[in-house]
């Protein structure tokens, strides 16, 4: 492992709802991630994964605590934080009326990639993700699999050192999901720091160097899969999760 690139300290998020009052969606969580690591956030629906990742990507502001992303504080310096990260989730769609090439170029530019190099960067990503044949086709004309590739290219258009994937395989078929996992692995090989949230145990087992189990906003455990197995005496991640999160019936899976 290399140096720590993400340092999360007491990160907390409260929402206020008229009917339910104050809800603590994320409750003082701490963890660190290093370059060349895939850090998995594993939790059931409503556990606080998406809220955590939205705070790290500065879409939401923490109620308390903070995080340093390559030294930039998410509260103090959100624009610089966004410049060094790529955020991918099922809620980050593409502009339907732009072509794949325009999409990648646009996101590269607004994320601060050098204007002199943007054209060659776009060409590189078009080649890398195999979207040459439909680079000039409008996004709304693309298939789901093609959109996924363009979306990945959009995420890394500015070559960020930190990548956040929020349940990236939701809604994908098996082949596309496997392809997505393969791409994430490649990003790790390139030395990027990756935070990956999922509720699919097998995905976390296959991809993550370390896994954090999050339940009802609290971080219950955070270690390598092997260490978690040793700690709990359980073989399968699902059992490990239940060991920490409580009884099986308390956990609502998707």
């Amino acid at each position, binding site marked *: 492992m290399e140096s720590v690139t993400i340092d999360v300290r007491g990160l907390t998020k409260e929402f*206020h709802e*008229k009917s339910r009052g104050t809800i603590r969606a994320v409750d003082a969580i701490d963890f660190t991630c290093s370059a060349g690591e895939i850090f998995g956030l594993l939790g059931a629906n409503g556990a606080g994964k998406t809220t955590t990742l939205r705070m790290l990507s500065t879409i939401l*502001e923490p109620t308390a605590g903070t995080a340093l992303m390559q030294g930039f504080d998410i509260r103090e310096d959100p624009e610089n934080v966004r*410049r060094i990260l790529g955020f991918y989730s099922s809620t980050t769609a593409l502009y339907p*009326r732009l072509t794949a090439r325009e999409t990648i170029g646009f996101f590269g*530019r*607004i994320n601060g990639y050098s204007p002199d190099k943007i054209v060659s960067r776009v060409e590189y990503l078009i080649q890398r993700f195999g979207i040459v044949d439909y680079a000039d086709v409008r996004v709304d004309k693309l298939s789901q699999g093609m959109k996924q590739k363009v979306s990945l290219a*959009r995420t890394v258009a500015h070559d960020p050192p930190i990548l956040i994937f929020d349940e990236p395989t939701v809604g994908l078929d098996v082949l596309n999901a496997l392809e997505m996992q393969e791409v994430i692995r490649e990003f790790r090989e390139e030395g990027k720091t990756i935070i990956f949230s999922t509720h699919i145990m097998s995905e976390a087992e296959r991809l993550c160097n370390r896994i954090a189990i999050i339940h009802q906003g609290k971080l219950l455990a955070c270690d390598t899969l092997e260490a978690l197995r040793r700690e709990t005496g359980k073989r399968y991640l699902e059992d490990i999760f239940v060991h920490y999160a409580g009884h099986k019936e308390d956990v609502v899976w998707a």
Partner: protein
Amino acid sequence: MKFSEIFVLYQREIRSALRERSIVVNSFLIPLFMYPILLWVMFTGMTFIRGQEERFDSHVVIHGLPRQHAAFADTLNQIERLQLRIDHGTDSSDIRNVEAVRDGVIDAFLNIDSGSDSSESLVPMRISVAFNESREKSVIARDRILDGIRRYRTGVLTEASHHLGITPVEWNVFTIRSENTATSVQMGRFLLGLLLPLFFIIMVSIGCMHPAVDTTAGERERKTWETLMSSAVSRINIVIAKYWYVATFGCIAGVLNLAAMMFSIRGIMAPLLSGSGSEIVFSISLSSIPLLILGAILLSGFIAAGMMLFASFATTFKEGQSMVTPFYMLTILPAIFIGQPDIDFSLGLAVVPVVNVAMMVREAIMGSYQWDLIGVTVVVSLFFIALSSIIARFILQFEDVIIGSYSGSLISLLKERYFGRGSREPNRRV
């Protein structure tokens, strides 16, 4: 504020919008073609209907005509398309004839009461005209009869005065001749000034409406909002780029509509003017063009800011439309007053947003430049644009708004955050 960043965002908005059929239709095609075509159809239709009306036969029954006024029936019979029937029945037939008018069997009924059966030649007549105002044919019949009565009375008076040795000039006492001193160009500008500001306001509003909803609520619905919010640009630059985009489309819609109306107005008005014998020249002074463009910029600047303010709460296109519609109605309301020719551009009107710009446009078309009022209009418009932009920026710094809470309602935000029970300070993020 970083202009290079804003330009990239603005360029993206424009590019996307130009590829969206509904935006192109609403912001470009409707201003160019819809109102000129609609007006042409309306005026042509009016002329056609008037022509049809003139071809109706009016069936009129007359009762109680004294023999001394038998010539009255001749006068009525001379009226084109008036079919007269004289009823010699008793008084009870009056009720039957009135009912016939009510039922549409006949178009009008004239009941004449001459008082006594005098043998004098100038027997006074009290004429009652029964007609049915809910039937256009009956109204036309009444007008034809009144025209006949006027003609007959003039004839009777002329003859009587002749017997008394009085000439028509003497019993008329004075004659009136009015003269319209307006040139054909002035008349053209007057008509343009009445018509164009009205459509100008509507078109700028329509031009802004679709882009404003599309760039806020539309983004949320398509889930591109979060993609944009997770990028490295500052939120204020996003707001500015979106605002410029909406204002640009509103401004283009306004200018296109003004141009289209000016070029097509002669053809539009031709059906109405064809029979009037008036020679009207529809043209505007070249010096008024910069003022018209300034008007388009100011109006679109204000309307764009207002619409974005409301649409920024919406999470779906439908919500956005329903949020923006009341503001749209509010902006086009002044158009009703501006159509009145007797309203003058005054200091009072110069401080009312939308009205002031519309009045400035009207005056510019008519070739009148009141620079003090134009100055007030510019200052007031810029003030309201700045105010709306500050409010929009203030609202968009709340993350609740950014992630699309409050179901598209500004009132919900105010109630829940500021005025409701247990209201609290919202989280902010710039």
